[in-house]
């Protein structure tokens, strides 16, 4: 997980507190309710230029930061200028 992603996820967690978000952080436990999930979804889709298909928008995808990151990595394609 890159620092940008961690920062982005952390902003949507009411109870992230001082502890660093890791791949194993359980997002629901840290306050990611249904509305915050939508906000996080929109934010990561904007930031990474991807659209997560409906089939991947499951409880499992939003269970941990690592799960969401994995889905993003699968979808993210390199941009023409090679920046991603």
């Amino acid at each position, binding site marked *: 997980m890159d620092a940008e992603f961690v920062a982005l996820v952390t902003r949507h967690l*009411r*109870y992230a*507190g001082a502890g660093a978000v890791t791949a194993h952080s*359980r997002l*629901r*436990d*840290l*306050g990611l*309710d*249904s*509305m915050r*999930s*939508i906000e996080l*979804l929109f934010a990561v889709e904007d930031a990474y230029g991807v659209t997560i298909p*409906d089939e991947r*928008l*499951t*409880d499992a995808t939003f269970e941990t930061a690592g799960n969401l990151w994995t889905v993003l990595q699968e979808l993210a394609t390199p941009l023409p200028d090679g920046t991603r």
Partner: protein
Amino acid sequence: MRPVDGDAVATTAAVAERFAATADERAAFPAEALRAMRDTGLLGLLVPTVYGGGGGSVGDVVDATVELGRADLSVALVFAMHCQQVAALARYGGERLREHVLPAVAKGDLYLASVTTETGTGGHLLTSESPVALAGDTLHVDRRAPIVTGGRHADGFLMTVQTPGATTPHQVDLVFAARDQLTVEVLGDWQPLGMRATESVPMRLAGDVPAWQVVGPPGGFRTIAATVFAPLAHVGWSAAWLGTAAGALSRVVGHLRTGKRVDPSAELLRAHLADVRSRLDVVHALLRHTVHVLETAGDTTAAPVQLLVNTLKVRAAEECHRAVDELVDVVGLRHGYLAGSPLRLERALRDLRSASLNYGNDRLRLAGGALVLLDSKVRLA
């Protein structure tokens, strides 16, 4: 094993009906109907046969709840919520907990109440501000709840508490405690508009229980809620409301036919009756379809399934209340509005007014709006 059949339901419904007026008047728990559920085996309907229960399906719970709802909404709600607890135990309880609890439910010795409300969480099911202390293998629970349906009469409780060591209120466990493991205090009165016989009093439950009485893994309530608690609550409540509205229509039709009190050619009357009936048919179709989807869907937490379950709850609450409201217009003030009328529309209307509040329709709409955005293809369940 005692078979659970139509007789068990009919017997319990008959008892419920006999005591419904008194229970409503006194806002007192339907003790006689609970006795009938224990004696007939109905209390064990959802207990798997391996534990001596009826091995019933969600569809069987719906059938029984609708019938009980025709007689007394409070009895139907009490039954449906008990079944919701049994389903959670049967699916997520460890083997030791299941062995400990389910045979007693099947024998009719264990009526289970649900303790999920908290003063501080504003009705949010998935959070808890009730910490527990874990010492060795023992959990010390001290739980206050503003509304515990049937709590004064329950033999055991399933309560939501914070996971031991939780750092946020979103880490929630479901814990079983038998009544004799707890100090049980009733903290106040119950004087509502309707569903009065649920006797949903505020309580404090405190005591020590072994850690194996936690249902599911630590922090596991979220999954239990998504897969069992929420779907069964909404299905069970909807069945109860549908039964009450169907019972009201049945009494009105009987009144209109036997008394020859009306002119059947009156167009307004016929239009109203058709409206009422169609409201019930729509709820019934939605209810049965939802049960089918829950029984066949691979992932019941998928957005289309959750949306369907929420829609059932919201629409059943609205349509059943409106149906009885409309029946009051059909039969008028004397037969429809007076407390002593044998048509009992006044009580049914008061009872059904609670439907939109019993897990708030407004809250479900907000959750639904978020879920709609997760399903851009609109995959209809």
